[in-house]
């Protein structure tokens, strides 16, 4: 189950963060996303280590944490997408697919002429689309 998705700007500022838990504990997910930026930073700054995936947007699993997984995705404009899931057996292909769709949604959202680049994404359409993508992710992994 995806518990949180986030868009983080190129200055590591949160642009969009949505948790899909029902409890009122979004803050801890903020924390998880924020901390995962350490990993993203490290990967971005050490291209030597991540040599083959230099041109790869998908950063893969960021954390081998016991109870949840954090995946990252980096666009060409250095915008990061972070996914936190509590599913412990997730297929990479699923996550890749998820990020691709998420990226498309993001591109559409920021293409809105009323969107100020670098500002938080407030579009309701984007939120709906993201939740659809998140729901379908749950299905595909369940099925």
């Amino acid at each position, binding site marked *: 189950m995806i518990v949180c998705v986030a868009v983080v700007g190129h200055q590591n*500022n949160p642009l969009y963060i949505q948790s899909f838990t*029902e409890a009122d504990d979004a803050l801890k997910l903020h924390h998880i996303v924020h901390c995962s930026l350490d*990993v993203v930073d490290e990967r971005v700054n050490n291209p030597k280590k991540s040599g083959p995936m230099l041109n790869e947007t998908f950063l893969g699993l960021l954390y081998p944490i016991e109870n949840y997984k954090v995946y990252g995705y980096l666009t060409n404009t250095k915008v990061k997408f972070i996914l936190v899931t509590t599913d412990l057996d997730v297929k990479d292909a699923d996550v890749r697919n998820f990020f691709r769709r998420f990226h498309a949604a993001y591109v559409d959202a920021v293409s809105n002429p009323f969107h100020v680049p670098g*500002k938080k994404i407030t579009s309701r359409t984007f939120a709906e689309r993201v939740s659809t993508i998140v729901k379908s992710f749950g299905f595909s992994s369940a099925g």
Partner: protein
Amino acid sequence: MANFLAQFQTIKNTSDRLVISVEDVSDVWPTVKPAFEARLPFKRATLNNKTRNPVLVEALPAEFILTTDARLRSRFPHEQFLFWFREPYATIVLVTCEDLDEFKTILKPRLKLIVQNDEREWFVVFVSKAHPANDQASKMAKKVYAKLEVEFNTKKRERCCKYDMHFPEANFWEDLESKVMECIRNTLDRRVQFYEDEIRKLSEQRLMPVWNFCNFFILKESLAFMFEMAHLHEDALREYDELELCYLETVNVTGKQRDFGGADHGDDQAALVNPGNKALTQIVQEDSFREFEFRQYLFACQSKLLFKLNRPIEAASRGYSFIISFSKSLALHERILPFCMREVWVTTACLALIEATTSNYKDGLVAPDMEKEFFRLLGDLYSLARVKFMRLAYLIGYGADIERSPVNSASLSLLPWPKPAVWPTVPADASTEVLEKEKLILQTTSRTKSFGIQRKPLPLEPTVLLREANRRRASLSAGNMSEMFDSRQGPMEGSGFDTPTRMSPPPKALASSSISRTNSSPGNFEGSIDRPMRLAEIFIAAEHALKKTISNPELWKSLSSSEEFEQKYLDLTRGAADNYHRSWWKRHGVVLDGEIAAVDFKHGHFDQAAKSYEKVCALYAGEGWQDLLAEVLPNLAECQKILNDQAGYLLSCVRLLSLDEGLFLTKERQAFQSEVVRLAHSEMKDPVPLDVSSLITFSGNPGPPLALCDKDPGILSVTVWSGFPDDITLDSISLTLNATYNTDEGVKALKSSTAIVLHPGRNTITLDLPPQKPGSYVLGVLTGQIGQLRFRSHSFSKVGPADSDDFMSYEKPAKPILKVFKPRALVDLDAAVSSALLINEDQWVGILVRPVNYSLKAAVLHIDTGPGLEIKESHVIEMESSAGVSENDGDQVQNDGAEIRTLNSDKNFERLILRDGKIEFPNWASDIPSILWVLVHAISDTLSRGSSSATTRRESIVDGMRTIALKLEFGAFHNQIFERTLAVHFTYPFYVRTRVTDKCNDGTLLLQVILHSEVKATLTIYDAWLDLQDGFVHTGQTEGRPNSSFFPLIISPSSKAGILFSICLDKANVEETREKPESILNIKYGISGERTIGAHPPVMNRSTGVDGARQELIFRSAITLQRPVLDPCLAVGFLPLPSDCLRVGQLIKMQWRVERLKDLDEAGVSKQNDEVLYEVKANSGNWMIAGRKRGYASLSPQQGARIIISVLCMPLVAGYVRPPLLGLPDVDEANISCKPAGPHLVCVLPPPLSSSFCIPVNP
């Protein structure tokens, strides 16, 4: 073979180095032993690894053992193969002999016997006891050794070396070592081959039922151990890795239910760096090993090798993955393991691994990024241990001591509760402990946050512990109360986000107390066996269960009291934070610093707490994570408040206020504000500067910037956004303007000293703007004062809604707010008339006032006339809007087009009074062009002068030019001044030219007077007469007036009219003194013209009513008439030359005709003159004159008499030459008329060619 396990273990423990056996044939070993053993361990040995590649081994340990030693003798042959790794790798045969015979007879056969065993690698060391002084002995020894070499050396291999006891040769030891190495290498290769073959054989049988993992293990580990002994750690590690893979396969594949292990006492302490923790015989189970112990054993072996290979980073990295994966395995077997075994094991494993890796890690030996990786792993290990430790502490009731921060919540609430088969129950004798615990729970109150912030605390538990524990406990008996209690629980148990949390996770202390109270209410469940446990009971039960689980006294001590817990918690947190910092994972590190700060805060170490909190706040604020910042910032503020750090506290309050509005309740925000105001006004002694850029933002008003003309002051209106939740009074405010593109210009501050009240949200404030230099200005800094608080704000452009995120707003380009234009024409003053006005008459001169996009409100015009012009002060000045010239710009038409239209349709007209030479403009004239009509009178003393048509006009325009100096003061503060001097052209209505058109024979002259109209107005001539000067008289009876039927004569603008006067010379009084030197032309005329165009009817004095009445004006012009000058009597005409051209040297006849034009009698010339004297003048170089140049010719004095004078001439040069001229020297030139006039030049051709020699040839 499995029963060899114990033996294998002991062998492995006893033998730890390669064995070299010594066959001491001649009993010399005791003497040479010290020298031999001093060579150990062998330096720089070269061995072959598993792939037969040479590997350099530094310091290979080995041991010399005599073949007679009990350790080698007591072995059974069948064990030899199995434990071959412990057998000698080389055999040194030690001999000495001083007698050749003895060698031949005794020694040689014995040696042959020893070395016949092929299995062994051997070589012979001959020890020479001979003293070098003893020649005889040493010679003998040499001989024996030579014999020995012959016997035992082969072509392929030298197996002998000689050791001189007294003076060993320099290269002996090298020789010895190389021989030993050769033996060891060969043996090792052979044994590796053997083990590999065996292992392959076993591997092939893997799927057969008889296959036994233990056998495989013994072989594999023997090989690994052999490599390890030979210091080929790399190969040993590979063997263990393969072994692990193989083991995991057997564990996962085989369907056999095996015992997992881990149930022994002490198993909770991880043994992952201690391979000798348990004997293998203890963990063997049927044909394999127990997973719990065996996997740890394998990892321990691997880590030992990794440390030997000096790779602690890899050990840490592998260890972390191992712990994670092993923890998963523990979770699978949690039901059979002791309570919380998994958590305890992970905690101890992490700590053990940290200790082992750090003690094996040497600073600065690896690349910086590897180092970072290592610290990151340590941080991860610490952090993992910390989480598990917190979970344990929570279970026994220290939850209240754990900060409910995002980091703790993230790690704990996503971590499922332990899942024992049955939740531990309270021991029978623990009722007092339960009571105490309950008391403790009731006492603890959740720490109230500063500012009365009410937040739902973040969960530390995946689900409510009370329910989970009771459910686990009661799961054996279905249908009881706790099952019902739990019936709503979703299928996703333990994920932390299911229904119970949604239902009610109120603050922990609250929940626990309220629920426990309902549960313990009498009568409900009392007496029931499965009465749900209360929270205190759960804690106590967990404590007792953990006491059983945890064997490590230190760990247990850490959980024994809340102080001990806190100490350990701090250690773990610090360890994690420090290592994360060293690994440059600043977010992880700083956040954990915040956790330490929370503990510091609790203990009153506010200074340290504030420092750490500041770091956390800076981290979150720097990247705009406001939600997280809102969690920490109040804590920082609280610290600063307690520390009396007023500036810091103020800043924190302001930062709190400037966070997104949704993050705090209005009440809380009001509390922040009241703190700010209270501090600003009361407590501080010195002014405190503060940056409120995030709270008070400002911008210019949307739309185009305020445009001001040069030198104009203005009023600047600025939008200020206040982020305060309530109105706030600013004592003063000032705003700087920065000139763009002009950095050297000093910053100018606009000040408003009056108090300004800012409402929440958008405010508009106005500031007086003194005149600025031309340029474009942007808003700079807003500063102001609230009590003792001096704030400044740098941010602007927050034009959007107040709730928009202003992070990174500094990226927006600054919009200019003020534009001061370069000096330009703001108004134009011009003469409204384009053509000349009448001189010496009262005329309106129009001054066109045209504002150029600038208001002329209350403008004052100073009028000063130049010489020759006066303003009729008695008259008013008329002002009217100039409809035709509506040039005021387009946007005004757009803005208020309706107004313009009405203005244009109703023409404004107003009479103004000129006072002290100035007039004030009416309001309507402020924006539209208008014309000011000033009544002036140009004075000219001179009379208009006519001129003859023959002469050019002398009078220049300058004569009629008059100037009016104008000075317009305008602008809001009469700060703008426009000065201009207008030139107005005045003129007489006519310009007169005269011409004598005809001279009649009777002496009458027809004088034509041409009247040029000088004005752009229609002139009507009513009458004209000419007062003639002396010497001329009018002919006829008209007295110089033309026929009256001509009048009125209308002259269109710029056209001409002519009047003929017939006059004649007054012969009567020619010689009289001239009284009237000039004639005067008098014209009575009227004018009809527009003052907007030019000349117009003059304003009559006080005759306003008779506009239409005919106005007759008099124009007088002086004309000078001159008596005729020329009076020709004779005409000299040049007769045409013959048609063929003149040639040089050819005579021609020039002829002139002289004719008498009038009788000479009249002129009174002497009668003698019937002859005329003539003279021909010619250039003697050009002409040769034949005949008389000068002479008299008779000419009758009668009028019309004529003669022809002929002269023969010959041109001398070719070209155009002046012809000869005929002159009459006796006659005044004035009386000669040359008619027809002779040519100026004649063409003379060169002489014809001589034809004497050019005789034509006739055929």
